[in-house]
């Protein structure tokens, strides 16, 4: 019987360089995990990040021992760095879900090589985000009081508070992101189990691969589940940042109390998240020589999303300012003027520069394809989005209704240690991820080879 028994080879498209077959693409990605091509450089970055994590642990331990008084927060500014970091990190997480779920549903081929590490980014960013409200509780060891369970005090959570919605939103988001990520990993874990000759690795990858064999019924189940999870994650990601925005919008503080917040926060989340994807993708493709898989097209497409969401964020700023004056509410108006000329005005103008002015460069094709420029812009956007969160959280609180109760907020060294420590914790987790798990989905890349094979 004559069969066309030649392996498929990629023909070369904007998403994938030519000459890759299912076997060689698996080989190339598994090599990163199984052979540690970075050596001491990985150890060096991991070492520095570990020191940062140590700092995070020290700051947390001191916070547990002494209380939130070690931070700069006081009345009226009771929400300082902790809530800023919370909103910033959860927003960063959202791009991972957007890439893996929404772009999957829209059948965008360019998501294939970036979805895995973007999902890992989501998982780590959302976990870190979840820590901050807990640290902020005052008595963090009672955080489980947020969980509705029959208890001796016969108390139940307050269902009408956005803070409890937030608890459900974040925990659901973390669980669903983890499931989505893990289900997607199963065929890749099986590939690593089969590739490695190290007994210990065979055992651990084999255990987590759950005995995956690639049977047709397994692939059918796998695809149905993966698409359903994507369909569930899509409204979920919108709901999570909407609820985060409601934490603010349901309060009556000028600068918080606005129906604009949910869509504006979701756009801001995607904006900062895609910037973070670019920030991570550029060093990754250079370090592991993945230019064949993460091509300039991937980066340019992500840059287009940054530009689009950046324009929505800019529009949000305009609407917010317009509404403050149009409403005729003197407190809203005073708060908006204070933003532009008050104590925190330099940060406000810096934020506008980073979030509105700088991304306009991305209209130029040349900038979208210029790697150092993209990296610089994406880092500036991340800085800008952190400033935005800081201004919303802090500046709004420091001048509310009664001048007699005005105050100001200056971060202490413990605030800064927790913030820098949280970035170190993210790097620490991400380094572990790229060391032990494939940072590009091998199964999906093989499908891409099959789709883009030479005729």
């Amino acid at each position: 019987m004559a069969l066309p028994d030649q392996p498929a080879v990629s023909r070369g498209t904007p998403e994938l360089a030519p000459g890759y077959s299912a076997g060689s693409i698996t080989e190339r990605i598994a090599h990163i995990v199984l052979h540690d091509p970075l050596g001491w450089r990985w150890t060096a970055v991991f070492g520095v990040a570990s020191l940062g994590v140590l700092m995070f642990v020290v700051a947390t331990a001191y916070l547990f021992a002494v209380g939130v008084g070690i931070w700069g927060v006081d009345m009226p500014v009771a929400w300082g760095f902790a809530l800023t970091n919370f909103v910033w990190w959860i927003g960063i997480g959202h791009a991972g879900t957007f890439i893996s779920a929404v772009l999957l549903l829209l059948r965008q081929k360019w998501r294939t090589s970036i979805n895995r590490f973007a999902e890992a980014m989501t998982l780590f960013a959302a976990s870190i985000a979840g820590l901050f409200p807990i640290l902020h509780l005052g008595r963090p060891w009672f955080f489980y009081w947020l969980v509705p369970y029959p208890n001796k005090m016969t108390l139940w959570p307050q269902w009408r508070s956005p803070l409890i919605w937030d608890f459900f939103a974040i925990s659901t988001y973390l669980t669903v992101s983890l499931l989505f990520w893990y289900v997607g990993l199963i065929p890749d874990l099986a590939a690593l189990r089969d590739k490695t000759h190290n007994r210990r690795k065979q055992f651990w990858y084999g255990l987590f691969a759950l005995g995956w064999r690639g049977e047709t019924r397994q692939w059918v189940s796998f695809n149905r589940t993966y698409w359903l999870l994507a369909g569930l994650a899509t409204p979920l990601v919108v709901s999570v940042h909407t609820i985060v925005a409601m934490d603010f919008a349901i309060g009556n503080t000028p600068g918080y109390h606005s129906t604009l917040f949910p869509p504006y926060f979701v756009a801001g989340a995607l904006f900062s998240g895609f910037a973070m994807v670019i920030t991570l993708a550029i060093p990754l493709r250079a370090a592991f020589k993945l230019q064949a898989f993460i091509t300039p097209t991937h980066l340019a497409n992500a840059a287009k999303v940054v530009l689009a969401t950046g324009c929505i964020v800019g529009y949000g700023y305009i609407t917010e300012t317009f509404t403050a004056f149009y409403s005729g509410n003197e407190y809203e108006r005073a708060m908006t003027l204070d933003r532009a000329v008050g104590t925190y005005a330099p940060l406000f103008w810096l934020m506008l520069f980073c979030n509105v002015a700088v991304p306009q460069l991305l209209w130029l094709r040349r900038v979208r394809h210029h790697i150092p420029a993209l990296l610089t812009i994406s880092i500036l956007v991340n800085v800008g989005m952190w400033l935005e969160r800081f201004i919303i959280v802090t500046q709004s609180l420091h001048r509310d209704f009664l001048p007699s109760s005005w105050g100001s907020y200056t971060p202490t060294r413990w605030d800064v240690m927790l913030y820098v420590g949280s970035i170190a914790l993210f790097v620490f987790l991400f380094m572990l991820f790229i060391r032990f798990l494939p940072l590009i989905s091998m199964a999906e890349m093989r499908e891409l080879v099959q789709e883009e094979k030479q005729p």
Partner: protein
Amino acid sequence: MSGFGYLVGLHSADALVEAVKAAKAAGFVRIDTFTPQAIEELEELLPSPNRVPLLTLLGGIVGGAAGYLMQWYSATQAYAINVGGRPLHSWPSFIPITFETTVLGAALAAVVAFLWGSGLPRLHHPLFDIDAFALASSRRFFICIRAQDPKADQAQAWLQTLGQPVYEVKQ
């Protein structure tokens, strides 16, 4: 024949699809395939019942109903507090959590249905005893005719016509 079946590894997805078609034409009915990636044509050639969508729907309904009932019960029955005459059953503010528990229930059900429907987790499998089967997760496309097939006694001879080594998989 006893045991699990006979197994052959091919080099491309297209070859496997052709082989499955030929095997069906030759009258084999218990055919399994093992591939590095999902192949759409095989899904149609070898249909298998799939309950993932139905169970996901049920999981979502159960999750949403449980989430709403929990809030209704605690706010109106177990811990009813009248604040300024506002209604105890303030359903609009119960919606966000109901939505979250719906998604959670559906996602958990989807993953459980996936594991159940694909026979996972399973720590060992007869196929793992075949050394060449390790390639099934990267570059080789395997076809297996199971021992339960009524024509299993002809399987080995038929598979040899594919031009690749045939492995006998023991139970």
